[in-house]
């Protein structure tokens, strides 16, 4: 089954980054923020993070775990993992096509 990616508007890219980060395992908000900043070199604000987390949780792509000392970890659901894999495959194919076209035009 290939679940359809939900429409998150301006939170689409932050949501994808969160899903990729959570593919390493459950993380709480602060860990997600710092990992994204390390991986992409761009900070993600707390407002953006929680707007995207709320959408992902509502769509069933992630789920909250029991809080540890007020910090609540989130983990990827099965549907979230399938959707992420599908999205990454699509992006990979798009990137490869783009690189191929770029190579053709430069040669």
């Amino acid at each position, binding site marked *: 089954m290939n679940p359809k990616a939900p429409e998150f508007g301006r939170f689409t890219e932050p949501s994808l980054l969160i899903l990729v980060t959570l593919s390493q395992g459950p993380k709480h908000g602060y860990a997600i923020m710092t990992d994204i900043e390390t991986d992409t070199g761009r900070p993600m604000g707390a407002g953006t993070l929680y707007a995207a987390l709320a959408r992902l949780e*509502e769509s069933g792509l992630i789920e909250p775990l029991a809080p540890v000392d007020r910090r609540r970890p989130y983990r990827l659901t099965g549907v979230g993992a399938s959707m992420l894999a599908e999205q990454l495959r699509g992006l990979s194919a798009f990137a490869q096509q783009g690189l191929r076209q770029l190579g053709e035009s430069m040669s």
Partner: protein
Amino acid sequence: MRQFLIRLYPAVWRQRYGDEFEALLEERSIGPFDVADIILGAIDARLRLRGRRSVLTQTRGSSMSLRMGGLAAIVAGATWGFALVVATGVLPWVIADGDQWIQFAIFAVGSIALLLALIGLSAFQAREHPTLIWAAFAVPAVGTVVSLVGLAGMALLNDAPLVAGVSSWYLFSFGLIAAFVGSGLFAIASYRTGSLSRVGSALLAVGSLFLVPTLVTSNSQWAPSFIMVAITVAGFSLGWIVLGASAFRTMAPAADPQPA
């Protein structure tokens, strides 16, 4: 500062995410970028919550109009079916010719139920096709009101002219034809929208639109006229009942809003 920023979010959001959000903000220093980002996040949460409440109110309104319209459609179908069968005179032992008040009462109940059914089911279907449905609502609704006025005139004034020299009987008959033909238009519109039973819409369309040829041939000894009467009565009555039943099937319980 942190508390102020958190309080910008709606209460229902704070209830769900407040603690962990506060813990997150405590782990880092807050700069102008963070303040702006949190303000935008709070606006987003409030807009999403407002959108949900609006959908919920709309859903509850639709559910109420469906319930009212569905019940009224079933009552209208059953009452009109009974009234039309009695009017054909095939069941003289049920209501005698002299029991005019009973006949008036049955027509009145059927007409009021028909009006409520039109209002309720139109309000529900108009969410997606407002122009088509409200246009189709106008003719039968006006017809039903006119026939009710005519009915009241017949009950109170007998054959005396009611409005501009027009007798109550003519007013009632004109309203009745408009209500039937209009019901046919309403059925066609309902069939096109597909929100309610298409079988019910088709039955109602056939029953309603058969009224005029049925009336034209009703005084003739032409054999098929009885079949046409049967089609009109069965189609009109069953059509409304099936539409009403489908309205109840369409109803879904409303969900409470989740935090944004």
